[in-house]
């Protein structure tokens, strides 16, 4: 029987799986992979959805299976958990910088709050020109996790990664 890999190796492998809807980010820096357990003869990988109905989850699962198969692992379980609920606060600074470079305004930190209910306007910086003169066109954008904004300075529309 093959020797089982170390957990840090499995984590490393997971960084090769990219989110199909935001292909600049891998599922580790997004915080989708929650736990890796290497057991005597199998590996358990626990993932959590960003949104309950995130259509990318199936693809992500398939991609994880593919990577594990490539690494010669045949005995594994992919488990799904809902709690603790995924939050944009788990996103690393590096991941935020990558989003920005991709033209997607990163989520603000620690702002998954109730202020939203009161219709408070967010200060979202244009990822292209850096202007703060931006406004929301639609709360719901190209994917469940994004809103659509427009910059009044450079006139470019852009995605804003919503805080949850």
């Amino acid at each position, binding site marked *: 029987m093959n020797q089982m890999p170390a957990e840090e190796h499995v984590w490393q492998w997971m960084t090769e799986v990219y989110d199909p809807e935001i292909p600049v980010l891998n599922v580790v820096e997004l915080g989708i992979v929650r736990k890796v357990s290497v057991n005597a003869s199998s590996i358990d990988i626990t993932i959590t959805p960003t949104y309950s109905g995130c259509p990318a989850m199936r693809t992500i699962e398939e991609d994880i299976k593919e990577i594990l198969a490539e690494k010669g692992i045949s005995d594994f379980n992919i488990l799904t958990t809902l709690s*603790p609920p995924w939050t944009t606060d788990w996103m690393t600074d590096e991941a935020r910088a990558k989003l920005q470079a991709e033209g997607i305004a990163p989520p603000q930190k620690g702002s998954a709050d109730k202020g939203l209910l009161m219709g408070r306007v967010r200060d979202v910086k244009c990822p292209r020109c850096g202007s703060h003169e931006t406004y929301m066109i639609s*709360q*719901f954008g190209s994917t469940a996790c994004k809103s659509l904004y427009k910059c009044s300075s450079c006139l470019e529309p852009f995605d804003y990664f919503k805080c*949850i």
Partner: protein
Amino acid sequence: MDKLKFDYILRLADDALIIGQRLSEWCGHGPVLEEDIALSNTSLDYIGQATNLYKQAAAIESAGRDEDAIAFMREESEYRNLLMLELPNGDYAFTTARQFLYSAFMHLYLEKLSNVQDEFLSGYAAKSIKEVRYHLQHASDWVRRMGDGTEESHKRIQDAIKQIWSYTGEMFLMDETDRNAIAAGYGVDKATLAGEWKSMVSEVLKEATLEIPADGWSHTGGRSGKHTEHMGFLLAELQYLQRAYPGAKW
């Protein structure tokens, strides 16, 4: 099996599935592209929540039915959703008014549910409330915009609020399942949420220059499987593929 917990989760699942199905009907028919996308996204949130809930119900039942079998292969009288959620979409004002009144309730309900002594239910609630928060904000914005808009938009949203108002009482109804669930540690006393809900929605309605309808008699029956005449048509569309091609795989 734990029949009480199964029944309790099934109600939540059916609510999510039926409103998700209704909202999905807007896909390709929204008044503007952004709203088309917004409603499709909202629908997706509900279908996702329904999937999580049905999976758990299937696990509790352990009778060999999976989440799809429970969602798609039941008869009308076996569905336990609120009547207001199965009503046809009507115009955009009607869809918005329903979304507003229902999301406001769900926000309060999920807040309570996220604190109950059940790992699955509290986890589901903590996850879903983040989504409902966006639904509520989106619907509130549109209630204000239509109410405080043109004469036509004001009239339409006012009519819609009046029409749905007589279905809202069912959201707060407590029956045996609800009371037993409280005793079991995972129920929520929905009757106590009515006051807060009323003040929450009244605030937005006032800002929208809309009249708050008088409370009165409410339609009920969904929780015991007695549906409106619209439910059969909804299910015909929802279940078509699974009925025509049982066990179909993508």
